[in-house]
């Protein structure tokens, strides 16, 4: 029972949302609209749940003085500080002059951007140490990569400015993007679409079921 009802519910909701695409009539689109609105709210709670998980998980490490526990204290304190400021400042918490906005700019924006900027360094060192042209396939990859890297930036314009029209570097890189690149990418897109559709079908038919295991106290 505890497993069956959610599975049936999932199937029914999925089927309504599927039909909703083909049936504009309010008999289907009415429930469809309701599910759209409802899922927005439930997903929001799911994100809050993520924070709650973070709390229990790190709280447990702190409690048993696990590895790096002082850092976990920093983590939880900063999380609660952010929540407290947001609660105090209320609905207008994102106005430019609020403390919450200041925290966003100072901590969130700067560190998130830097985390990903680190990858620029790693990409260069990986290019040097782990980009091996060992066969024809890797060779094709390398040639396409070189053309695109050169053709997409101003240095490519400068090098090929006086080359015959049609084979200047930016044009070659555009052609690679629009033709050979695009055709292979489209095959991947179609294959991925079939994968998503069959997963959707299995969920609606109630034979996917892996989530029913992952939910609850398993």
């Amino acid at each position, binding site marked *: 029972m505890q497993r069956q009802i959610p599975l049936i519910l999932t199937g029914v909701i999925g089927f309504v949302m599927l039909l909703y695409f083909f049936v504009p009539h309010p008999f289907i689109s*009415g429930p469809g609209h309701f599910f759209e609105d409802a899922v927005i709210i439930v997903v929001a709670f799911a994100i809050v749940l993520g924070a709650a998980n973070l709390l229990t998980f790190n709280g447990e490490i702190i409690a048993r003085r696990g590895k790096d526990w002082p850092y976990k204290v920093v983590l939880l304190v900063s999380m609660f500080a952010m929540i407290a400021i947001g609660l105090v400042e209320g609905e207008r918490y994102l106005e430019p002059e609020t403390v919450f906005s200041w925290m966003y700019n100072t901590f969130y924006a700067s560190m998130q951007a830097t985390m990903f900027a680190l990858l620029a360094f790693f990409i260069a060192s990986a290019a040097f140490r782990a980009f091996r042209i060992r066969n024809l396939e890797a060779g094709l990859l390398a040639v396409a990569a070189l053309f695109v890297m050169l053709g997409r930036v101003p240095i490519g314009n400068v090098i090929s400015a006086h080359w015959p029209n049609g084979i200047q570097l930016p044009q070659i890189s555009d052609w690679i993007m629009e033709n050979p690149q695009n055709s292979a990418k489209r095959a991947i897109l179609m*294959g991925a679409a079939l994968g998503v559709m069959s*997963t959707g079908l299995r969920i609606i038919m109630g034979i996917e079921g892996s989530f029913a295991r992952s939910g609850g106290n398993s």
Partner: protein
Amino acid sequence: MRPRASRPSPLRSGTTGLPHPVPRLRATSFAVLGFLALVAGVAHAQTPPATARATTTSSLPALSAAAADVQNDNGQALHVQWTAPAGVEQVIVERGSTPAGPFTVLDTVSAEGGSFDDNDVPRGKPVFYRLTGLGAHGPTPPAVIGPVVAVAQWFNTGRTNVAFFSVIFFAFVLFFLWSSRGGRKLFVRRIAGIDAIEEAVGRATEMGRPVLFVPGVQDIDDIQTMAALVILESVARTAAQYETKMIVPTNYPVPFTLAQEMVKNGFLEAGRPESYDPNSVRYITSEQFAYVAAINGIILRDRPAANLYLGAFFAESLILAETGFSTGAIQVAGTANVHQLPFMVVACDYTLIGEELYAASAYLSREPRLLSTLKGSDYMKVVIILLLLIGSVIETSFVLKNPPTQSLGQVSSPFKSWFRTE
């Protein structure tokens, strides 16, 4: 044609969304859908679409206009069109429920556009529009058009082609599901990547070093993680046969438990449950870069001879591939996250590309669920390839008959046009 909807619809919506009275057809469906229908919208489509012409109230040049129901919608939109006399720059669009008004202004729009979509019409009720042109010489006399009724449709005919593809594909998947559950063997070719994995494990054995298996960085809700764990079981079996140590770092609690299960199973199936080391599956952390830094540490410290990265990978793929490459290990990778594949292809000895990851897991597990999806997709691809070939021939002959005058792609054959989605 006089629209029937000029008299009030017998089924008017109540404010709560509950229909009154409930027709029989609806009542049965309610029983099926239960509380879902609480929110079902109401007004029934039963009036024919209405098209109304302008009735001008003045002899001065007014707009000549018409309004019609928007097809394939839920009965909330009407389309108003006009031809404005010269000198009219803007048009005030108003709507009312009687020809005499009162009218409420919807918007003032540029006359040049020639049309206005009213997307917030009460369903099934006759409405009237009043259009007034504005120009340098003052306003034109208002043109009142109507009544028109917005009507809901039961099937969006613009999406027949999507239904066509979906039905064919779903039929394939369900057929293979049914036949594989009935015990029919479904043939799937052996993926070269599986051989590469076995070879890698073999080499680790020769060198007496461990095998590293990273099941991606996503939680269990990503099907790639599931596919990776299926592959893990068979890798563990091979490793058990060769008596080679495994290291499996994980980053979420559920994959961690499942990975333990899989490795244990693999050792059990190979008949060596005593060689199973419970510490081989480790929980690291769910923070992306911390997890990667920890794996880097493992690679540099324990020097595994084979690194297998299978599952959902993101920006960290290149860091892993590079570190593993620098230790000279054999590396096999696989992910459906296409934008990470380039880094794996250049740094790994073998890469499972996109769907190959799922195919490998279906091949190894022989699970009807996975196999039927794989076979269904394959047959759908055959359909697509055939339709593309036929379509290209039709399109070519069409273009030969109607050579393009200036720009390409303006006209297309009826075959191609049928697949245009709306």
